């Protein structure tokens, strides 16, 4: 789910800023994500080769594990998306995010070349440190092939050069990210079973029935491992959230951005909520789901979920204002999200062209501290006057 939101954000960005950073934009895998969602619109015109047929997302297809931990090459987009809170030996909090995307291209499947770019692998990683005051982040992209970059079917096993995420037989994930200016080595151990979102893992993204994805989360992952910065290695532990989502459909044309939150609550519950915003900030679609430690799952329909900005933060870098403190109402419950630090903006205009806010937040339920999570705000960047 979350990635769809994010894609919408990138799309907005690429539309509005396309002219300015045209020279760099297509270098990034992120931009391909955006393009991937809109391929269907633009592949008319002259075509000299066969276009691959991709699978649609349909309702009432049950998710099967461990098969669905693995990749689904028949679908256009897929991602494994980990966010979480860490604690240093000095009890200082850190936030982190690790994402691997797989994007199927329109490249002719008849091309026998081992270089044929049937799938692209794209990865993002970020580290939030209140002491540093801003986000450290890095990304990578490559075509699937030669054993240098791949996803595998049957289990989570994603690799992109020296970045990888691997799910072991016992369900524990191992991941290592050698970013430009930091390195993450984590083990993520699940404490609960996968949380199937929306309708048993069929997650609607808009008013149209085809606007949907397959989506499950693994909340309450116990993190242990180390973070390396400036050659200094620190042992960390913490709690994380993993999303795995795949789809072929595209966004609603009215969508310009998304607000998403995934939170591990102290009582063992898990909360996920998002809204898709239209041009005037209006709600195009919304959803929330809460799973109790007992396994009881509560779904909220779009009209039961509302997002209300409480405090904004202005980025002078990108001249963009984000509602970094948000109040979410699910039916009668009021949740307030407060950021670990204000500046968790990811500004990669010089490389990917993407600008969004993604950061660690603390969560209160009806005014009482309830847990910690990650908030993602996309599509807020100001349109440039052309």
């Amino acid at each position, binding site marked *: 789910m979350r990635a769809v939101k994010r894609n919408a954000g990138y799309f907005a960005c690429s539309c509005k800023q*396309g002219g300015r950073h*045209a*020279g760099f*934009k*297509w*270098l990034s*895998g992120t*931009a*391909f994500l*955006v*393009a*991937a969602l*809109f*391929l269907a619109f*633009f592949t008319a015109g*002259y*075509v*000299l*080769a066969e276009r691959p047929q991709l699978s649609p997302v349909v309702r009432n297809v049950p998710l099967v594990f461990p098969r669905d931990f693995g990749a689904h090459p028949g679908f256009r987009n897929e991602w494994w998306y980990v966010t979480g809170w860490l604690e240093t030996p000095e009890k200082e909090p850190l936030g982190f995010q690790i994402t691997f995307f797989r994007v199927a*291209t*329109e*490249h*002719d499947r008849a*091309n*026998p*070349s*081992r*270089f*044929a*770019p049937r799938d*692209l692998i794209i990865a993002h990683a970020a580290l939030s440190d209140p002491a540093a005051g801003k986000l450290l982040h890095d990304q990578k*992209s*490559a*075509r699937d092939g*030669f*054993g*240098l970059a791949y996803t595998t079917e049957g289990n989570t096993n994603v690799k992109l*050069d020296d970045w990888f995420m691997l799910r072991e037989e016992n369900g524990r994930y191992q991941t290592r990210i050698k970013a430009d200016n930091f390195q993450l080595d984590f083990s993520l151990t699940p404490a609960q079973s996968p949380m199937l979102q929306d309708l048993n893992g069929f997650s609607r993204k808009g008013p149209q029935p085809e606007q949907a994805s397959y989506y499950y989360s693994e909340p309450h992952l116990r993190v242990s491992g180390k973070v390396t910065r400036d050659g200094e290695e620190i042992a960390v532990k913490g709690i994380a959230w993993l999303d795995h989502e795949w789809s072929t459909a595209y966004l609603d044309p009215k969508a310009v951005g998304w607000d998403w939150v995934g939170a591990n609550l102290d009582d063992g519950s898990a909360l996920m909520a998002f809204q898709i915003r239209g041009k005037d900030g209006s709600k195009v679609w919304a959803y929330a789901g809460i799973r109790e430690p007992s396994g009881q799952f509560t779904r909220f329909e779009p009209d039961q979920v509302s997002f209300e900005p409480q405090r904004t933060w202005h980025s002078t870098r990108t001249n963009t204002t984000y509602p970094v403190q948000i109040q979410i109402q699910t039916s009668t419950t009021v949740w307030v999200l407060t950021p670990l630090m204000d500046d968790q903006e990811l500004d990669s205009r010089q490389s990917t062209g993407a600008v969004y806010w993604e950061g660690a937040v603390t969560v209160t339920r009806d005014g009482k501290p309830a847990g910690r999570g990650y908030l993602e705000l996309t599509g807020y960047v100001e349109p440039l006057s052309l």
Partner: protein
Amino acid sequence: MRWRNKAMLARWLLSGEWQAHKVQSGVAVLAIAIGVALGFAIHLINTAAFNEFSAAAHSLSGESDLEVRGPQATIDESIYPLLAEHEDVELANPVLELDVALPTHSKERKDATLKILGLDIFRASVMAPDLIGIPAEDKLFDVLADDAIFLSPAAMEWLGVKQGDILNLSVGTQTVALRVAGGLRRARAGQRIGVMDIATAQWRFHRLGQLSRVELKLLPGTDKAAFKAELEQELEPQSQYLVAEPTTRETRVANMSRAYRVNLNVLAMVALFTGTFLVFSTQALSIVRRRHQFALLRVLGFTRKQMLGQVLWEGAILGFVGSVLGLALGYATATSALHYFGGDLGGGFFPGIKPVMHFDPAAAIVFFILGVGITLLGSAAPAWEAARALPAPALKSGSEDTALARLENPWPGLLFLASGILFTRLPPIFDLPIFGYLAVAQLLTGGIILMPPLSALIFTAVFRMVQHASHARPVLTTALARLANAPNQAAIALGGILASFTLMVAMAIMVTSFRVSVDDWLRHILPADLYVETAASGDTRGLIPDEMKALAETPGLVRVDFFRSSKLMLDPSRPNITLIARPIDISEPGNTLPLTGESIPVAQLPKGAIPIWVSEPMVDLYGYTPGKHVTLPIAMPARTFIVAGVWRDYGRQFGAIQMRLADYQALTDDLLVNDAALWLEQGVAPEQVIESMRQLPFGNALEFSDPGQIRALSLNIFDRSFAVTYLLEGVAIIIGLLGVAASFSAQALARIKEFGMLRHVGMTRRQILGMLAIEGGLLTALGVLLGFVLGGCISLILVFIVNPQSFHWTMQLSLPWRSLLSVALMLMFLAAFTAVASGRHAVSGNAVRAVREDW
């Protein structure tokens, strides 16, 4: 005070001299200017073209630290992941680089190929970000498309396509249609390249599993040399990979055109060299003319040093003005030449590129120093003479020729000739015939130095003969008497013309020898009646076995020979060599190959050895002498071959190897062929065969040519590549003639008194002019004669030393008698005409006054 006085004195003396002899000084300045201009212009153009060419070549390899490639055009892609995951490698960038043929129906681009790079954008965007295609705003995925190509602006213009158009390319007998998806991030002006996805390139151009190279970026802090050595050792067992630094690529590019560039620069020096002699003759004659003045100045108190300084100062100013003019002229010439003709001066080494001119201060300083230097050199001997002269005798009239008496000493000239001959025995330096060129300069200088004693000797002999033989030819006798008794002034006048004519003779003989040899060679290598090729050139040509079969079964053929040619890299720092596989009759290889020298008869070949025949450069560059066992990396494992003979090849300067097609196909999996030679049945017209071949399914992709066409085309290319040579020769001759005109007119003016006296004793003006014409004609005749001898010797050096050392090919000597004779006659006529024209003024003066004239 002191320097002001000195400067004033020098200025007075200079301005007086120059005002009185504007033409002569002007010619000397012009000669220097033209020499400097030509040298500077050629240097600028070559440098601009070469820099642009290597920058373009460099831009194709981006920022890599090392690259892994193979001896053949491509390597197996399986090496790529090994390199990508290799310790210390930060990034491995796989590249498939192809020269892809354009469909043959585009006549104006015949033989043209487009350089296409197949890249993985995710790797290349880091290694060579300039080479990234820019897709349309709404088609970002075109950079990965299976049907798209991105073209540099120059390529789009050249091909006449724009974004969104379809570009047709030839692969074998097929046509591949690609969508022009956009431009490139940054391409060099004039650089014609296309970029596409590497998978698409492999697929569309039938290069599945192949890469041209893998470029490596090492982790920061890695010891490159150590890494290279280690990697070489790791890859060694496979013996099909070469690890090279990107600079090696530039070395290769430099090596490719170096001989050509050096030769062109040397040729430009010829004009400057001719200018030196002109300065020498101008200054020498000016000093003879001013002998009295200098003697007077010496009497009045000029020291020897002052005298020497004065003359050198005059020379330096001529050189300064000439050099500055020359630099400006050269810069202007280079700029306009680059603008109108691009950077290719005819050698064909720098096609298509649009170099940008940069003023090169270092080169300008070098050429300036060269210009002033040679002027000083030309002035040195006359200045020395002026300083050495004893003032008292010099004040007397009639001693002009004694001033030049020193010139009659033949020893320096003989010394030059001897050292020149010695130099011809020395080997090349850095693959360049440095000593060959020096020998040419030595012979030329020696010849010119020997001109005065030789002309004294010859004219004295002729004078004696004429004196005995005739009584009633006062004009001829007077002319001969002067030439015999005062040979030095006359000989000096000839310095320039002798230099330029000698060089012209030498170049003409060399070019003719070359052309005749090429023509003979073309006849030898084109024995068939008709030639067929696919997609004119490039890496993507080829006929598959079925197509070969269909061709061979066409009615009306007696014999069909198929050829397979491919590129092979034996040394990463040298340009690729060509490997040609074709049917060769092992018992009579001379039937197919233009063999030179010894070859090993079939009976003496070791049993089981595979014979190859190498072109002459292979012997020079790689030491492939007949009988040698060599390893060629064309098969796995690498096989050993024996060099069975050497053949002459004017087509491939960097080396070529021929082997039997059967051997080649047995060793490699490569069953494609590029070309076919067809022998027709008696009475079958080529048109019939062409007609039936056109009917074949792939008939449209075939290109037919008869040997005549190929010969005409080749000779046309040959002539074009020597066009600049002809131009430079012409300029040298014109400078020489200007020198003759200047010195004749100066001498005629100096001889006003003599003419007045002759008029007094009863010579008519017509007779005096006749005498001048005879003098001019005879002198030029001698110059031409010497020019023939000297030029002949120099041409031997060019043909047998400079060419084999520069280009590694030999040729047989041929003399262009007719054209040389006509140029010689024309020169004699022009010289006589010049002598008369310059004498008219002197003869027209008042004869009585002329006798009284003391200066």
